[in-house]
């Protein structure tokens, strides 16, 4: 029997993709159907609801390991993963009891919700004392949620395709949307799905690749469609059987967060799927991502929010027309149909994402340089003949982002990372100079960033932080202000929520400015001057 814990162990034991696929194939050809469905759910970021408070998990694990709680917490900060920490500190079981199946474990974990804390505790202690390391790790992951273990959805769909003989893109489509692993069978989900199941599914999104070559390599300038690259929420608006749904790229159903788009959708014909970007749009102007954030993560959107932070759908692609999947039509044909729909609906909430006509690559290049003026992040370059593919496929869809805005900032706080950066200080807070009321210069936090350095650089900065810690606040350390980094970001806006008065979009480290001292770092005023630049 090759169960889910064995699968996780096998995947963990290799850095090679083909061996991971082999392990997945082994699992998908030998596990029970119920376990297969759960595995698909877990690798697609669907997880059982949390039924035990994690604070309780920590207390129980510390007790079982016979260590004080603070020591467990310290260990957790260093290990960087709660499930792994518990699996490590709880004593290894001597008995070789075979763990229950994945679906059995998930059922047990779900049922925990109905138990009082005393019984929850005795259940957990009992499981912990009988599971081996990997089973314990998987069990804890199921309880704590989040199953990122080096298996992408793509790897999983590939393995299922290999085992079943079904086309990989078809599988990717089948596992889209909102399905409940407790109710659906492997047969319904993968082997013989019924037509009705697709009514509620979005299509797998086609994603562009960053442009990594000269424009001339793309061939003739006239074979491409040029559009703005919008900075909003990528979404599919679906109308089928008089129902309207909005699915985000992260496969979340976000219909309720955008009631005005649902109203607009009611004017569409049944059997229509539009792909586009939800953008903040007030007073006939596209706003910043920051404005959009006020609309996110809410169960219900109030009247005031709706009035103050209105949105539109910038439509650029049509995937379904009159109930027919048209992803295999040429891009220009799909756009023609889309444009007709937008014109006939005549709703201010639905805008067509216009394309540009350029006569040569020079003009393309020039337009790219002016993208920020159009409130866009750059240019999208899409082949006129391109089909709508599944996932990130190179060749037909390119994104050409404008150069980011940059500023030199001082590293002031650091935290240990997670996953492959566990036990290394890789999550940083950066500050800029500000002159306070008394006329003194002080450093004010403006952004956090944790990507952009090489592993080697991270090691060096990590060593610096360990040697130059000023104070510890739980997992966070304040650091002697000494290192200067060039921070890049996509957008910038005023913000009352931030101490600096400014919010930046997608900040990351561009480079370590070894040549600069903290006196060379920029000021908050420098940063603010970029807002209208």
């Amino acid at each position, binding site marked *: 029997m090759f169960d889910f814990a064995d699968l996780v162990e096998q995947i*963990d*034991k*290799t*850095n*090679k993709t083909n061996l991971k696929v082999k392990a997945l194939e082994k699992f998908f050809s030998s596990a029970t159907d119920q376990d297969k469905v759960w595995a698909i759910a877990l690798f697609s970021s669907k997880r059982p609801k949390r039924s035990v408070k994690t604070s309780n998990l920590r207390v129980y694990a510390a007790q079982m*390991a016979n*260590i*004080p709680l*603070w*020591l*467990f917490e*310290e*260990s957790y900060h*260093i*290990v*960087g*993963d709660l499930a*792994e*920490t518990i699996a*490590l*500190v709880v*004593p*290894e079981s001597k008995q070789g009891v075979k763990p229950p199946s994945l679906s059995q474990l998930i059922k047990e974990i779900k049922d925990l919700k109905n138990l009082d804390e005393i019984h929850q505790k005795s259940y957990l202690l009992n499981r912990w004392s009988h599971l081996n390391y990997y089973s314990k790790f998987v069990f804890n992951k199921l309880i704590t949620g989040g199953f990122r273990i*080096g298996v992408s959805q793509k790897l999983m769909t590939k393995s299922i395709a290999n085992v079943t003989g079904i086309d990989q893109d078809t599988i990717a489509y089948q596992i889209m949307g909102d399905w409940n692993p407790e109710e659906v069978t492997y047969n319904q989900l993968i082997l013989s799905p019924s037509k009705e199941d697709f009514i509620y599914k979005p299509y797998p999104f086609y994603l562009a690749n960053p442009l990594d070559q000269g424009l001339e390599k793309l061939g003739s300038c006239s074979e491409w469609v040029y559009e703005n690259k919008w900075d909003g929420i990528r979404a599919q608006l679906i109308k089928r059987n008089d129902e309207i749904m909005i699915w985000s790229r992260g496969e979340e159903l976000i219909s309720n967060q955008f009631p005005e788009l649902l109203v607009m959708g009611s004017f569409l014909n049944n059997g229509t799927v539009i792909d586009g970007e939800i953008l903040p749009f007030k007073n006939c102007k596209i706003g910043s991502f920051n404005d959009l954030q006020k609309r996110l993560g809410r169960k219900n959107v109030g009247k005031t929010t709706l009035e103050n932070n209105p949105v539109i759908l910038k439509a650029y692609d049509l995937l379904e027309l009159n109930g027919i999947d048209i992803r295999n039509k040429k891009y220009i044909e799909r756009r023609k149909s889309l444009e007709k729909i937008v014109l006939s609906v005549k709703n201010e909430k639905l805008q067509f994402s216009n394309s540009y006509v350029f006569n040569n690559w020079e003009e393309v290049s020039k337009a790219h340089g002016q993208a920020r003026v159009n409130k866009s992040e750059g240019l999208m370059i899409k082949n006129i003949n391109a089909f709508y593919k599944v996932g990130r496929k190179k060749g037909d869809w390119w994104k050409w982002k404008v150069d980011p805005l940059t500023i030199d900032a001082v590293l002031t706080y650091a935290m240990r*990372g*997670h*996953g*492959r*950066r*566990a*036990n*290394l200080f890789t999550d940083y807070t950066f500050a800029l100079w500000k002159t306070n009321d008394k006329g003194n210069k002080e450093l004010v936090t403006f952004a956090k960033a944790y990507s952009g350095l090489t*592993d080697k650089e991270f*090691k060096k900065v*990590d*060593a610096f932080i*360990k*040697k130059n810690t000023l104070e510890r606040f739980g997992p966070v350390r304040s650091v002697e202000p000494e290192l200067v980094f060039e921070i890049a970001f996509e957008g910038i806006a005023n913000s009352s929520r931030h101490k600096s008065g400014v919010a930046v979009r997608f900040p990351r480290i561009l480079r370590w400015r070894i040549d600069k001292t903290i006196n060379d770092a920029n000021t908050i005023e420098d940063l603010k001057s970029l807002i209208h630049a």
Partner: protein
Amino acid sequence: MKKPLLEFNQNGIYCPIAKVYMDAWRPVDKVIISHAHADHSKYGHQNYLTHPNSIPIVKHRLGNVNIESKGWGEKFTINGVQFSLHPAGHVIGSSQVRVEYKGDVWVYSGDYKRENDGISTPFEPIKCNTFITECTFGLPAFNWKKQEVVINEINDFWEECKSNNQTAVIFAYSLGKAQRLIANLNLEIGKIYTHGAVENLNEVIRTYKNLPKTYRITKETKKEDLIGNLVIAPPSTHGSSWMKKMVPYVTSSTSGWMTFRGARRRRAIDRGFVLSDHVDWKDLIQTIKDTEAKNIVCTHGYKDIFSKYLKEKGYNSFIENTPFEEQEILENNV
């Protein structure tokens, strides 16, 4: 207040009465070396003293330095202070240093582990008033399996590579871990090939200690020679062009850090075997009990955390900084 028998200054761990350093990190007149790893055995001192098993290695690395040897348990007196070396079990020749003056006994552990690895002389706990301990792995997340179990895992890994016509590559520190593997792996599976840095040390150690035969990888070594066999190389070779000859290979690392999934993924290696030459959590606590020391000085590793824990347990515990820690946390001799 009485002056402590040993203190930490900018040069190293120092006995002011005897005017002797231990594992000094800056050039000094007289130093006692706990073991021959580069960060503990530095170049530039006037007079060295260490265990006979460390001397050939120190000389191999530092050249013809002025060096004196003392066997384990052999007492010697400097300025009225009595010293003796005792096995630490970390690598071949690694020693603890016992220091006694007017009834006050201190022990400096150097780096140590408790399990007999079959090549270093096993650790002996020494009773003392003050114990200076490393805590590289001073966290309850670190609990080693028995060596036999891990060696079997590595043997299985090797057999698997062999049956797939691949070369099994193990990254291991060239002094210590490399010989520990060579002495314990099952040579019926195949031959062990070594990187020059490893083989140079093997040759030095073979002059006074039996070590199974290994094969140095040279320009003449052919790809076919390596397939199905095992290669031991320093971690710095990972990803270098030197590795080309080993294709198709599977990489692995042997270290206490392999406990963490993140550490394995970060190094982009296929397999991580948790095999350390340092004490784990339970042995650290057991050792402190065994020494019966009331005062514990915590150095390199998770010293702040471990020291806080000891204080809660009623020990008079404090921390001292050494330059060893960053290197060890960052890299490989663990």
